[in-house]
């Protein structure tokens, strides 16, 4: 039997397009220091450190080696994870396994990326299959655009409905002191009029590139109860992976098979039968506005083809029935190696009642997702109740 595990503390940096005031090690230290303060612990209380980063986005391998004094790994048990968009959730799920196994009691998961130091589109191009896909298309935007067109056809969502997601994200971000893109006055028209990157995706439909780091501390049951007034218990974790080529599932956004598989596994483990009613808040990995609408459908928040109606009805606004990304989400903050772990940290903050101005009142059950390489999905369900 796995042991019960809870998140007891989190720490984030101020995320920004360019954190030119710090190097990578200093950036990580900022998040780690805040997480340790949050739990009133020191680095000596941490049994193992797990690190997430998408290399070589900063242009060098082993960034963790050069940043070791920042992440506190000297002579500690540690592993680095590099799984694309899911890096952060993979690191979180691994931290859960480390503690649940009974081998370590207190484990810190860290995610970081300093995108200003590298060239993200070039790095993302190296993700594509070199023989076929890289020769005809490159980068994340064209890829998403092709999927978004299919999704619009399949579900009938409009560019306006997608723009509403982009607006919700940047306005919610104004309530989050750590968020990168805070745009209090953004309108649907602003999104629709922003530069067309690749039809139907416009600049304001896409996530930014950010510098940022996050640290999350996981602990076993007795420590969690002693150290945190209200721990965020891990109720379920799940992962699933798709096939490689984009054309292997031509309706990839309309039918996100790995998201469906992983979420249903997690719902079952957590005893959730109606996610829209039983979840109180969701922090999902929506790299583009269109993707968030597709994720509503694939996560079972609504029926197929109803994603656009959900945003129209305000269901996923901070004051709605099921707030999605009160933090501002990936559309507001995207230091890739940290992004999915930020979802977990934000979901934990909601359960712990520490989400400040973006707090969803009385949140008891929260969902966090990671999504990477168009294929890989991670899911975590956090709860105020012990599993």
């Amino acid at each position: 039997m796995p042991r019960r595990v809870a998140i007891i503390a989190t720490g984030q940096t101020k995320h920004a397009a360019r954190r030119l005031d710090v190097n990578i090690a200093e950036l990580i230290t900022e998040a780690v220091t805040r997480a340790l303060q949050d739990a009133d612990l020191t680095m000596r209380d941490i049994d193992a450190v797990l690190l997430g980063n998408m290399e070589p986005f900063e242009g060098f391998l082993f960034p963790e080696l050069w940043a070791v004094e920042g992440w506190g790994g000297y002579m500690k048990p540690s592993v680095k994870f590099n799984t694309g968009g899911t890096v952060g959730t993979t690191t979180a799920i691994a931290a859960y396994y480390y503690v649940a196994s009974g081998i370590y009691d207190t484990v810190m998961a860290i995610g970081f990326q300093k995108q200003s130091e590298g060239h993200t589109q070039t790095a993302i191009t190296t993700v594509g299959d070199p023989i076929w896909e890289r020769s005809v298309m490159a980068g994340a935007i064209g890829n998403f655009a092709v999927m978004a067109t299919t999704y619009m056809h399949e579900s009938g969502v409009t560019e306006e409905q997608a723009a509403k997601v982009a607006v919700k994200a940047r306005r919610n971000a104004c309530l989050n002191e750590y968020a990168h893109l805070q745009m209090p006055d953004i309108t649907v028209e602003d999104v629709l009029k922003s530069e067309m990157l690749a039809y139907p995706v416009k600049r304001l439909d896409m996530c930014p590139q950010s510098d940022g780091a996050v640290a999350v501390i996981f602990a076993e049951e007795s420590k969690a109860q002693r150290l945190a007034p209200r721990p965020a218990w891990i109720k379920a974790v799940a992962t699933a992976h798709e096939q490689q080529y984009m054309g292997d599932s031509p309706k990839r956004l309309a039918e996100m098979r790995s998201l469906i598989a992983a979420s249903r596994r997690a719902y079952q483990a957590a005893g959730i039968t109606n996610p829209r009613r039983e979840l109180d808040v969701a922090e999902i990995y929506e790299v583009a506005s269109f993707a968030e609408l597709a994720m509503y459908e694939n996560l079972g928040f609504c029926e197929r083809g109803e994603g656009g109606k959900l945003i129209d009805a305000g269901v996923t606004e901070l004051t709605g029935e099921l707030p999605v990304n009160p933090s501002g989400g990936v559309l507001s903050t995207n230091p890739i190696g940290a992004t999915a772990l930020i979802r977990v940290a934000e979901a934990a903050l909601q359960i712990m009642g520490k989400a400040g101005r973006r707090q969803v009142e009385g949140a008891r059950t929260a969902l966090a997702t990671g999504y990477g390489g168009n294929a890989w999905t991670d899911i975590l369900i956090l709860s105020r109740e012990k599993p």
Partner: protein
Amino acid sequence: MSEWIVRQKIRIPFQYTTGRALTRFLTGLAECRIWATRCAECARVYVPPRSFCGRCWREITEWRELPAEGEVMSYTVRPADPPLILGLIRLDGADTALVHRLGEVEPEELERVVRVRAVWREDRTGSILDIAYFAPVR
């Protein structure tokens, strides 16, 4: 003095082995032929071809030739002069789709384009770019 940046640029050459299935596929393209593989268990027809079905976790040995014609599943347009149009094309008889360029078509017409065919280059070298683009069947 508080913000100091060191700038560098690294050139990294790579070479990729195409492997058994893709070698036959690329050789075929040089002869204007499109080769696919079919999984004996799930009957999925893969193009580009694989030596292995990831869904069934078994080797694929059956080859079949597909017509260089099919259906546009999706597209995107990148603003440029002329605009770069990318499509997701499912060839007749395939279960997977190919990403490639679309040509001889204006962006405004795309919503009406359903059937496309490969337009082959004269100087073919055994590359995916032996297909210059896919054009509407008019």
